[in-house]
């Protein structure tokens, strides 16, 4: 947590208006934490994982982001030559604990998981680590993960993603305008961190005014669409900033194609790309969930082979995607 805050502060401090510069800064911020991952990618080498059994326990497998994680883990397992078991905790912390326990009993060499709950999974992770299993957090971390025996953390940086998104909006609006924010479920840590990123940027732009309270649309397209339709009949909005692509698509549907309203999301999912191409939304920040999983797998194999990571926090860089470069990401 502290490390992430530091990254956020560093990058926020270095923010300049040009978007390209912003992205570069975000990358350099990440480098200062994880030299080994200068380009956000680490590799143990092809075939280095032969004979190892690795389990990846996802929070759930019900959206495009998580499916990208599944697919990347499978691809990494293929490349590394290790045996992979992909599990879904279905958003249930108790289920995830049992899955970790079961993987220890079944003799897995490494367990990668995205904690359903940052506080609830620490003890299970520690118990697994005490049995000699290499335990790695992907996408998000357990509270005090290092103290709980978790060997490494491969994640993106939601604060930076939020900053990248809001900076892009600020640039497009020339730092001035009426804005509104759609959030994920209140209390979701990823959403809160993205909001922190938004606030970091908004602090530099006093003329960007939130004319309505942020609306909790539960990551849901239909809910976002209803809220934005209502807003547009009462407010003159210049930009709608959404904490995920699903909600941005809903906002885009409400506003219509080429509405002149800047609408942005985070994640880089297929529905978001489709909406960027037909002009309903302006852009999105790709979180590269697949890369987080692949980095985690490679880190596990490096550790299993007795190697060392240059840093046990591996940050995946994020990318701004708009109509100009969307074709490269599909």
């Amino acid at each position, binding site marked *: 947590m502290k490390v992430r805050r530091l990254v956020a502060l560093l990058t926020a401090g270095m923010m300049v208006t040009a978007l390209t510069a912003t992205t570069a800064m975000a990358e350099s911020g990440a480098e200062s934490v994880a030299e080994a991952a200068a380009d956000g990618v680490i590799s143990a080498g092809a075939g280095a994982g032969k004979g190892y059994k690795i389990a990846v326990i996802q929070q759930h*497998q*019900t*959206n*495009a982001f*998580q*499916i990208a994680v599944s697919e990347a883990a499978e691809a990494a397992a293929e490349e590394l030559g290790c045996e992979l078991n992909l599990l879904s905790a279905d958003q249930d912390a108790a289920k995830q604990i049992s899955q970790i326990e079961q993987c220890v009993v079944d003799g897995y060499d490494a367990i990668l998981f995205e904690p359903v709950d940052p506080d609830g999974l620490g003890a299970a992770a520690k118990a697994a680590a005490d049995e000699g299993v290499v335990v790695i957090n992907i996408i998000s971390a357990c509270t005090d993960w290092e103290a709980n025996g978790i060997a490494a953390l491969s994640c993106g940086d939601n604060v930076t993603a939020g900053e990248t998104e809001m900076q892009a909006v600020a640039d497009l609006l020339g730092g001035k305008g009426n804005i509104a924010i759609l959030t994920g479920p*209140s209390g979701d840590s990823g959403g809160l961190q993205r909001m922190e990123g938004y606030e970091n940027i908004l602090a530099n732009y006093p003329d960007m005014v939130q*004319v*309505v*309270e*942020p*609306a*909790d*649309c*539960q*990551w*849901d*397209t*239909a809910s976002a*669409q*209803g*809220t934005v*339709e*209502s*807003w547009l*009949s*009462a*407010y003159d909005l210049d930009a709608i900033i959404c904490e995920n692509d*699903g909600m941005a*698509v*809903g906002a885009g*549907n409400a506003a219509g194609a080429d509405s002149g309203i800047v609408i942005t999301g985070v994640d880089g*999912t*297929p*529905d978001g*790309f*489709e*909406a960027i191409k037909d002009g309903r939304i302006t852009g999105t920040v790709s979180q590269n969930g697949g890369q987080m999983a692949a980095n985690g797998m490679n880190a596990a194999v490096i550790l299993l082979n007795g190697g060392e990571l240059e840093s046990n926090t591996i940050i995946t860089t994020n990318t701004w995607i708009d109509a100009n470069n969307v074709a490269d990401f599909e």
Partner: protein
Amino acid sequence: MENKKSFSAIFSEYFIFVIFIALVIVLAIMKPSFISPKNLANILKQASINGILAFGMMFVIISGGFDMSVGSTVAFTGILAALLGKGQYPLVVPLIVALIGGLAVGIVNGVGIAIGDLPPFIMTLGTMTAVRGLALLISNGKPVTGVSEGYRAVAAGSIAGIPSLAIFLIVVIIICSFVATKTVYGRRVYACGGNIQAARVAGINTTLIRISTFAIAGLLAGLSGFLMTSRVTIGQPTAAESYEMDAITACVVGGVSMSGGVGKPWGVIIGTLLITVIANGLDILGVSSHWQKIVKGLIIVLAVLMDVKGKSRKD
């Protein structure tokens, strides 16, 4: 029965109507744009899918049942429609398949409950979970993109200023109200929910009636799934989460008794509009969505309280 209603029963029946009118007046004063034509069209659009589901739910609850599975069915049939609605078939194909998909889920519910004698809550909790799984399975967990322009236009269009979604709702309201209040079938549904033993003795095939109410709910969930995909332009396996709760809320708030046998179509219309107006009004006022939950919760409790009070005095 009709003309012997006590004062409190009448009060409880119209209470929600009074609340609704009061809310509309307050919102119109606080934010004049609330009653702008554009926003009234928004309200109709936003009420449509929940309204269609609520009318299906109305039949189920009046017959003494309960359906938890409609939200999952909307997602499932929405995915089916999205997969078939990429322009490769005429639009009628995704529509029919969505309707059949919804109908099938409804019939499974009805058979399990009326023939298998399972409690409605348990049976539909089971299908709610399984059908959500089915939606995730056939979509591979990802949103289905590439819905054709023609299909998108179904929900996006409007006729004489009335959003086309609302026209679907109005047609559903007319048909359902007619069936519920003017047909023999409708009276049998009320009879089943009022006293199932008496209905059976009177020679009503209660098994068939109960299955048919779940089939109606499923069919309308299928229609909602088709419309949902058109509205949001993607098929989402996680869509319509807890829509069953909104449909149940619309019914209960509108005076449909959870113990069965009681309820009027116009109450369901008001219930649906009330929920939509709360969400729309608070959005327009720029109020945090946390407040929406609190207000919605209070209104549910108040409405049911009125329902219970009205009934206990009647007995």
